[in-house]
């Protein structure tokens, strides 16, 4: 078992959820999303983000519109579709279930690991 591999598998599962939650707060340009995630200490490569956004868009969870920028060509701004909002709600429910379960299971062993940190995984 490779530790990097397992860690990245764990991250992958929550990336989409995180992206959706950023976009849910308001229309977002990809580099805004990156910045917000960075601010939350979740580092993600742009090369990872773009394919994910495209896939979510193709699954009709996201939609985008072109916004003129004052430098260069227009940019894509993403927002949630109705379907995407529903999808997010389900993910959110699943996530809290999971988080609570993990919390309950790990709390006994790691006393110092508190709730707040748990929402900001490394």
């Amino acid at each position, binding site marked *: 078992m490779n530790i990097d591999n397992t860690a990245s598998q764990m991250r992958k599962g929550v990336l989409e959820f995180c992206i959706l939650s950023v976009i849910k707060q308001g229309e977002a340009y990809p580099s805004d999303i990156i910045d917000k995630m960075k601010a939350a200490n979740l580092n993600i490569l742009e*090369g990872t983000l773009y394919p994910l956004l495209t896939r979510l868009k193709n699954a009709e969870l996201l939609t985008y519109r072109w916004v003129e920028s004052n*430098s260069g060509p227009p940019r894509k701004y993403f927002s949630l579709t109705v379907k995407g909002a529903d999808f997010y709600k389900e993910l959110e429910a699943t996530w809290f279930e999971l988080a609570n379960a993990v919390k309950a299971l790990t709390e006994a062993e790691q006393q110092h690991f508190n709730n707040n940190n748990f929402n900001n995984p490394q």
Partner: protein
Amino acid sequence: MTNIDNLMGNTQLTKQKIKAMKQVININFQGRVVPIEVTAFELLKNYTESLNKHFAAEVGKEEIINDIESRIGELFQERLKNGATCITDDDVNAVIKSMGRPEEFEDDDNSQPAGQQTTSETHTQQNFYNNNANANTHKRLYRDESNKVLGGVCSGIANYFNIDALIVRILFVVSGVGFLAYVLLWAFVPGNSAAVIGGPRKKLYRDGDDKIVAGVCSGIGNYFGMSAWIPRILFLLPFLSFVFRWGHWGMMDFPNFLRVGFSPGALIIYIILWLVIPEAFTTTEKLEMKGERVDMNTIKNSVMEEIKGVQQRAQKFGKEATTVVGDTSKVIASEAGNVARRSSRSLGDIIVFLLKIFAYFIVGVVGFALVVAMFTLAVFSITVFPLKDFLVADGWQNVYAWGTLLFFIGIPVIGIITWIIRKLVKAKAHSRMIRLSFGSLWVIGWVCFIMLLSSVSRDFKATNTINEQEISLSNPKVNKLELTSVSSLKKYYRYNWFRLEPFEGMEEDTAYLKNVEVVIVKSSNDSFRVTMVKMVNGRTRHAADTLARLMEYNVEQKDSLLLLDKGIPITRTDKFRNQRIVLTVYVPVGKQIRVNRNVGWGQNIHFNGPWNSNDWNFNIEVDDAEHGWDEDEDYIMKADGLYTLDGYPADGNKERKQRINNGKIQVRDGNTKVTMDRNGITVDENAYRYDNNSSAPTRVDSLKQKQEQEKQRLKDSLQKASDKINKQLDKLNENNDPLPLAAYNLPVFNPILNMN
């Protein structure tokens, strides 16, 4: 494997060369002009290629890559804004780091865990990507550019099947279809240098950024490094020549040599190319499409500075100005590139070069002809326009006429001239306003033209009542009547380049129309008789009748002359409405008739079209009219019709046996033609092969034949006589003795007396 090593060696070599020069090139990256070092460009290209491979199986591949490239472009832009003169290796590496390499991407679709790939990262970057490309297990057919004779097709095939290139070459040369197949493969198989090294080779793509229909033409233009307008015009040629067939306007013919077209299948060819050529989506493909974007770094750096300055100043002019500058720089760049490439010319380059010359030639010819045609049209309409008052009624029709002249004819002339000038100075601003206003003015022109046509044609809708009026002759019993016009015989303009013809002559207020026809009929008594019919069109029958009454055409007999007016007068108030006069001359048997050429035109001038073609034709059918007579020739009326004074029927349908003209007598008898002129008599026995047995000789014919033979005999003997005279004259000249005058006369008459 040896092949791969070769390629890698090549790469290294290229890179060394480039480093020594430290070139900066201009690339058009996602709609931005980006100055970038060649080495950095290589890195960037490799990176986008690795992205391409990584997302090859992905559904939204183009979109993802486009998004990423767009973001990269944005990052570059930021760097340039912060004062960098160009993008360096470091910049590209930084950008790649922030974007992440494909193997670092966290995506669940990738079956290979990222960790496994990192093991191979001991290689250098360059080697890593090349390895990645070569590790692709399925083979692809590439043209081998490093081992080429013509285009590397054969060596590429040889690589693919792992055989010697020479074998493939021999097969290609020996087999008949080799050449066509070769050219096709050359066109459609990518060269390995483009795919692996990222070198200067171009690929044919459709250019979606600069398209009118599907970008086929702009793609071809990119491939050959010329303006997209050249292939566009080549494709449009057949349509252009169709548009320019003015035949139905009776104006002029589009110069014939322009009808070369490219076969009527231009549309089909276009569609096939549309299907076959892929569209360039990603920047990599777009760069491949445009090929190498040129060196001459010093020139370009200064050009870039210029552009930057201009762009800032032109900010308020918006996109238009920037595109002009961008395009100009592109043009400069591609021209410079052409020059650079020409230094290393292979056979392929020469072929491309020749094609280019050919294309430019065709386009030049078309452009020239367009200008000439437009110029002619303009001159024509301006010259003819003063005549409009004779055709067009006041009020709305006049407005339409002006609208037609200004907008329908004037606007395209101005438009094409400005277009050519703009092309010449390479200004290519997308001035929608200009195009829109030109277009709408032309539409107005069309409306005027159609309104004018329909309005004017309504004025021709009805015909007048036919009314045959008798011309009183002062002396109907003359022996000969000669129809002549008071006007002198003029040179007509009918067959001139553009017709200024419709009128015989123009005075200030009156134009004269020579729509005069003469019909010759045998008279029933012994006196001449002349009748006249006036024909005219009008909006209503009443209007036409009024016009007919106003038509003044005087016919007056003066001894044997029948004097006719020089034409039907058309005034500015009594407009041109297909006025036409038919004179019927009844000629008594035994009397002569002659019609001079100046009486009328062989063909009447009339305003005609599908809307009134039936109305125009009165279809003059005089039952016993004489046919086949010529103008300027004397005829005599006989009991069975009109004959020349030599006794041969005027009607061309009856066989003429003798013809006298130009001091030459021709006699025809069956297959034999006898010609007598000052050169003597020639007999051509096989002159008329056709129509020999068409009709059995009638009694009249056989009689004539006998006469003919008599005549022939007489001619022969006369000829003999003249020969004898000549001989005698020669003898006399040799003697040189002065003789009395009578001595000359004697030998002249003697032979004739001796003849029998």
